[in-house]
């Protein structure tokens, strides 16, 4: 029997990049086929081709044995292909029903919407598949886990049976991941076939029937979890042996550098996002903040770095009151900030590397005398840092928009790490980067710690938190659930805390570090 889906020799070029290089891929009916590769390996590009968002430069697609011409998502939907994108494709100001029916709306009396009928149908679907959701709720009011259910319902509503899930676990707690896996298994049991895109080895081992590994746009190999192990997959994915742990000596904590006391912060909508957070970071240690995205980490960091005025509470850096400080004052206390979204906040993409390297120090000697810009020191600074931090750029006049994600992040790291600093706030410092850049940035972070800098690390990658932190604070719904010593903590404990389970109710007693 022909496979339900077959890709042959798919090639896609972007200016300067070969995103997919003669990729072959088959999906059998009723299987869960993982597509594994690190960031930038071409997984998403391949799936966007399959879903009609990109047109391949070469190659053919066969659906159920027949050659398929997929020029748009509409074609893909017609062939029963559905995709849950990494960034959800939901309209926040519309209801669940409106989002699900969009593009396939039931109507009556000609063009008029019949949303009541649709809502009924959605209720039925969610009962059948155990995807609980209120059809009349607005998307913006739903937690991400529920939003993902809506995305899956979108596919089921269209009767898709080839389901593509692009990094679906990125925004979920370990427990939610388990639930998602249950849903995926029940989908497959009902005759659907699933392509599961991920860069996480553990997930592949748990859920996949088969796995295809992609590296730099090429297929490295296809295997089954039974025939392989994590180390081998990692080597396939990266192309060399990778150490899955970061080498670091035990921390030698010094004085308290950052103190946060009973902090309350509102988010953009005026809702409380941080609700009574207290923590301390000492010189020479890394405090990792774990938690599913959207539990107040962003607002906490913004408050500490002066980007968002807190409602209540205190922030002190080296004993100086910085509760209402501006970002400038924050930097001037000898602190540094690697922002969560490098392209939005951390860089001016149209500016050359040179100017981005003085983005927050341009007004100070030696880069300026009074209000006059001094070009020479700025250029010397840039030349030095490009070399020191190994930023791959043609020259210091190249706009950072022309650099790769990893090198863009290196520009930020170079700028923030090259100043004498006592406090470093790093938010999602390795998001979307390749393994090489991740290793590099991890090394630099540990190096800063060893130099006696206090590091506050926020990351939604549990592995990153566990590998780097000396202490781990788990954040859930704007509060710190517990602060744990890193070496004595397990993934399971963290997962439960991230899901909002109170430490005192955990079956194994967790040693909590009390704040003084």
């Amino acid at each position, binding site marked *: 029997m022909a496979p339900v889906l077959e890709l042959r020799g798919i090639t896609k070029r972007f200016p300067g990049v070969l995103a997919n290089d003669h990729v072959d891929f088959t999906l059998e009916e009723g299987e869960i086929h993982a597509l594994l590769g690190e960031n930038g390996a071409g997984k998403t590009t391949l799936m966007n081709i399959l879903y009609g*968002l990109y047109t391949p430069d070469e190659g053919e697609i066969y659906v159920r044995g027949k050659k398929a011409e997929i020029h748009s998502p*509409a074609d893909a*939907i017609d062939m029963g292909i559905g995709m849950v994108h990494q960034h959800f494709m939901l309209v926040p100001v519309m209801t669940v029903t409106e989002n699900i029916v969009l593009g396939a709306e039931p109507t009556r009396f000609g063009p008029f919407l019949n949303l009541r009928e649709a809502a009924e149908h959605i209720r039925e679907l969610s009962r059948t598949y155990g995807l609980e959701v209120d059809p009349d709720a607005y998307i913006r009011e739903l937690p991400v886990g529920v939003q993902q259910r809506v995305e899956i319902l979108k596919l089921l509503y269209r009767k898709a049976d080839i389901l593509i899930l692009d990094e679906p676990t990125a925004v979920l707690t370990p427990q939610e991941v388990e639930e998602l896996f249950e849903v995926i298994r029940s989908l497959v049991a009902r005759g659907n076939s699933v392509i599961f895109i991920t860069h996480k080895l553990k997930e592949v081992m748990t859920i996949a029937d088969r796995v295809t590994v992609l590296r730099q746009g090429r297929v490295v190999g296809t295997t089954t979890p039974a025939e392989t192990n994590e180390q081998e997959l990692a080597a396939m994915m990266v192309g060399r042996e990778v150490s899955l742990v970061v080498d670091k000596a035990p921390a030698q904590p010094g004085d308290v550098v950052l103190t946060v006391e009973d902090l309350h912060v509102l988010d953009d909508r005026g809702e409380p996002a941080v*609700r009574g957070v207290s923590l301390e970071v000492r010189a020479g240690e890394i405090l990792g903040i774990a938690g599913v995205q959207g539990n107040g980490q962003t607002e906490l960091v913004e408050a500490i770095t002066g980007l968002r005025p807190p409602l209540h509470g205190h922030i002190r850096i080296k004993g100086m009151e910085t509760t209402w400080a501006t970002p400038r004052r924050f930097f001037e206390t000898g602190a540094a900030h690697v922002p969560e979204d490098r392209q939005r906040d951390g860089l001016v993409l149209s500016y050359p590397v040179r100017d981005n390297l003085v983005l927050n120090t341009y007004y100070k000697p030696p880069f300026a005398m009074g209000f006059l810009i001094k070009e020479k020191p700025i250029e010397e600074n840039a030349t030095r840092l490009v070399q020191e931090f190994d930023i791959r750029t043609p020259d210091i006049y190249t706009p950072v928009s022309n650099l790769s994600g990893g090198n863009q992040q290196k520009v930020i790291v170079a700028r923030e790490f090259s100043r004498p600093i006592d406090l470093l706030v790093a938010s999602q410092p390795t998001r979307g980067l390749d393994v090489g850049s991740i290793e590099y940035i991890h090394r630099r972070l540990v190096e800063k710690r060893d130099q006696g800098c206090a590091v506050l690390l926020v990351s939604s990658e549990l592995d990153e938190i566990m590998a780097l932190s000396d202490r781990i604070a788990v954040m859930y719904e704007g509060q710190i659930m517990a602060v744990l010593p890193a070496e004595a903590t397990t993934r399971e404990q963290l997962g439960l805390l991230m899901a909002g389970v109170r430490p005192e109710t955990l079956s194994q007693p967790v040693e909590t570090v009390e704040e003084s």
Partner: protein
Amino acid sequence: MTPTTFDWTTFRHTHLRRERVLGVVYLLMGLLIWFLFFPSVEPGAQAKFGLNLVTAVKPPPLPDLVVPARGTILLVGLISAFIGGYQLARGFRDPQALMGVVLILFFVAFIVWATAGKSFNLTGMLASTLLRATPIAFGALSGIWCERTAVINIGIEGMMLSAAFTSVVVASAVHSLWWGLVAAMITGGILGFVLAVLAIRFRVDQIIAGTAINIFAVGLTSFLSSSWLSVRQDLNAAGNFKPIPIPVLAKIPIVGPIFFNVNIIIYLMIGLVILTHIVLFYTRWGLRMRAVGEHPKAADTLGINVYFMRYVSVTVGGVIAGLGGAYFTLGSVGRFDEAMTAGKGFIGLAAMIFGKWTPIGGFIASLIFGLADALQVKMAIMSVPIPSEFLLMAPYLVTIIVLSGVVGRAEPPAADGQPYVKE
């Protein structure tokens, strides 16, 4: 773990403070009404408000509404002060909404003050409000059609001006107002389509594309009117649509002559407000429009053709702007003058924002702008001791105040102004 010493009642208090401020503002408005208007009114002076249109003969004339000026001002100020006092003492559930009420009170006091000892045709002013609101409402509707699919149309002014020109020329040439109206719609539609092509196909910065259309329209209409219309005066004499009374409805006192005895273009405008509302919120097309405006990529992944939606909606927006242009000529004076739109297209955009990108809201906002405009004319006629130039500034100043969000902020469609790049 993490003791929350912060109590949320403190937080409520900070909110309460804002509510207190509002209370004080309302109270002060009451005092302001007394101080501004009371002293300069002669004791015993009466304000006489006519309730019949001068032109209206058929419905039995209503008696004039006569009120004692001082007493009314006193009363109105008192009500405002009371609202403020109550807000301070007890608090209303929605204190923001009361801003509208208080502003209306202030407006009433102002009119009574201006009318004291004279007479003022209230129905006449309301009728002229609708007339003056009409092009603004067309502008707002045009903007809604474009911006709900996330294309900013700042070229409404130019579209109106061009349509005003072609409508007169065509109507004069073929001696048919109807063909003039069609020509206006076609002109607007073409310019709308041009904007769509620039914004969608060529991804020109939308505000700049709109500005280019404006400059081009001003230039072309002035160019053609000085090269053609100055020679051929007969091409600039189209006449205008006459009011059509709707049976029965037109006989309702006050409302009848204002809403149901107007010309076809105004009926079209009212019809379009309702139609746009229905399309936007109750049809498949509207749902897709809104989705394209908020999250085009989401719409795209569901097989909706984002570009097609935008092309059609922006062209429709252009057609509506064209109708608005025809109102300046065929709907009122019957001839074309250079730069006759006088910024109404831009005020229409402000009305759209004020109305939070909804047709009904935009219409109400247009009425407010129309009122400011109508009032300005009336005041000049009644020789109120304010220079006429300052009264003429009123609609523009109101626009600025409205845009500053004094009366509440609105969120535009999330993707507004961003070209959609399909990789």
